[in-house]
């Protein structure tokens, strides 16, 4: 029997105001795998990621996390808010704009959901948070408020916040696109460490070199359709389609 995929997307379609953004997208992410979603802007890659945790509701198709369908309950009816929240808690999401909660200190940003969603004790949540802040190099800033942090620091806290829920899968939505160039490295470094530790991750990014280094699978979206899906060694060296070849010529500087 085949292993249950960490994320399984089947025949996903989504339109915004009559414009088709995703068409018949299918994708499987195995546990421990790192999958990068590439494509030019407007190709639907962020929408695909946001459908996985139901921040966008797909029009057709289904998405399963560890075999359990998200958004739609067993009876076929839309999930209740509580059920949906429970499914979302299995997924960690990191946003382009960090989206930290400004009224909470760094430590409280990380402990908030474990305490108030999972019902973990304050002491345990703090222990968990400190270990994660250590991992992302933000322990010294634990009592500071988000407005005092740089973009790179905010994003590292946001990663720790998502990890604190011990999610099955981490979703990254262009995590370095809003950062000054000199801050990109510190965030990519953290994500790279996570990939070495075996985290399952789905990554929407414009950092080609990075995608090449960390991914087990690269997916290329063009106008809402997956036109290529392969191992990075194949994808970056021998792209199958003309579209990807052109994309790579523009995005990856010739070494």
């Amino acid at each position, binding site marked *: 029997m085949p292993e249950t995929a960490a994320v399984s997307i089947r025949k996903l379609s989504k339109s915004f105001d009559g414009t088709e953004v995703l068409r018949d997208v299918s994708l499987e992410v195995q546990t421990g795998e790192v999958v990068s979603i590439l494509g030019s802007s407007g190709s639907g890659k962020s929408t695909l990621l946001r459908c996985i*945790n139901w*921040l966008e509701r797909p029009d057709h198709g289904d998405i399963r996390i560890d075999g359990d369908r998200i958004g739609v309950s067993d009876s076929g009816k839309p999930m209740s*808010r*509580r059920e949906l*929240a*429970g499914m*979302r*808690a*299995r*997924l*960690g*999401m990191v*946003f382009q*704009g960090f*989206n*930290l*909660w*400004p*009224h909470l200190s760094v430590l409280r940003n990380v402990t*908030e*959901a474990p305490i*108030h*969603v*999972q019902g973990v004790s304050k002491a345990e949540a703090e222990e968990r948070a400190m270990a994660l802040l250590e991992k992302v190099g933000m322990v010294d800033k634990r009592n500071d*408020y*988000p*407005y005092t942090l740089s973009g790179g620091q905010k994003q590292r806290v*946001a990663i720790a*916040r*998502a990890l604190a*829920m011990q999610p099955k899968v981490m979703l990254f939505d262009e995590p370095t696109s809003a950062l000054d160039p000199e801050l990109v490295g510190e965030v990519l470094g953290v994500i790279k460490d996570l990939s070495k530790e075996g985290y399952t991750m789905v990554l929407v990014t414009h950092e080609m070199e990075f995608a090449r280094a960390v991914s087990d699978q690269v997916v290329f979206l063009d106008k809402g359709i997956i036109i290529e899906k392969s191992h990075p060694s194949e994808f970056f060296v021998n792209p199958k389609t003309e579209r990807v070849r052109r994309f790579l010529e523009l995005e990856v500087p010739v070494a």
Partner: protein
Amino acid sequence: MDSSAWGLLVQGAWTTLWISGISIAIGVVMGLLIALLRVAKIPVLHQLLGVYISLARATPLVTLVLFIFLTAPTMGVNLNRNVAGIIALTLNTTAFNAEIWRSAFNNFSKEQREAALAIGMTPWVYFRRIMLPQITITSLPGLVNEMSFLIKGSPAIAVIGVVDLTRVTNRISAVTYDPLPPILAAAALYMLIISLLVWLQRVAERKASRLAV
């Protein structure tokens, strides 16, 4: 002014304070609930609340006080003056507060909401833990403003015979034939009450600066 005049003044100030205080407390919470209901856009209820807010904001306080006090008996409810005053003030301030809360809801960051939902919070946990603490602080300047307007508008309840801080000055001057001193004393007491509120507002604004991302 003798000590009995001062005693009356303090009594009047106390009446103004407690009647306004109760109206403000109910008005802030009711305003929040109405704003929540309006943001939920429940059909019919949404329109009804909209009509209430427009009416309450457009009606002078004196008119509202008289209306409540005079119509209640015709519907078989016997209202004491103080209760009628509180109802009128509450109806008025709730409408303004609902608008203050609603604009805070509408301006609240969509990104923070997404972060909360994505991490597994239900909308209720998100509201209580993420949104409410922040909009309370950002709405406070507006709310305090409205509180001071209410206190300054509260002499309207004198028309139905409540002896508040303004009305009491009439009573004093009816005996002393010297209206200016009690009015000046009353003005000083109003200023004292309002300055306490303004001080509170300043503390809140200092806290709010932290939220400016």
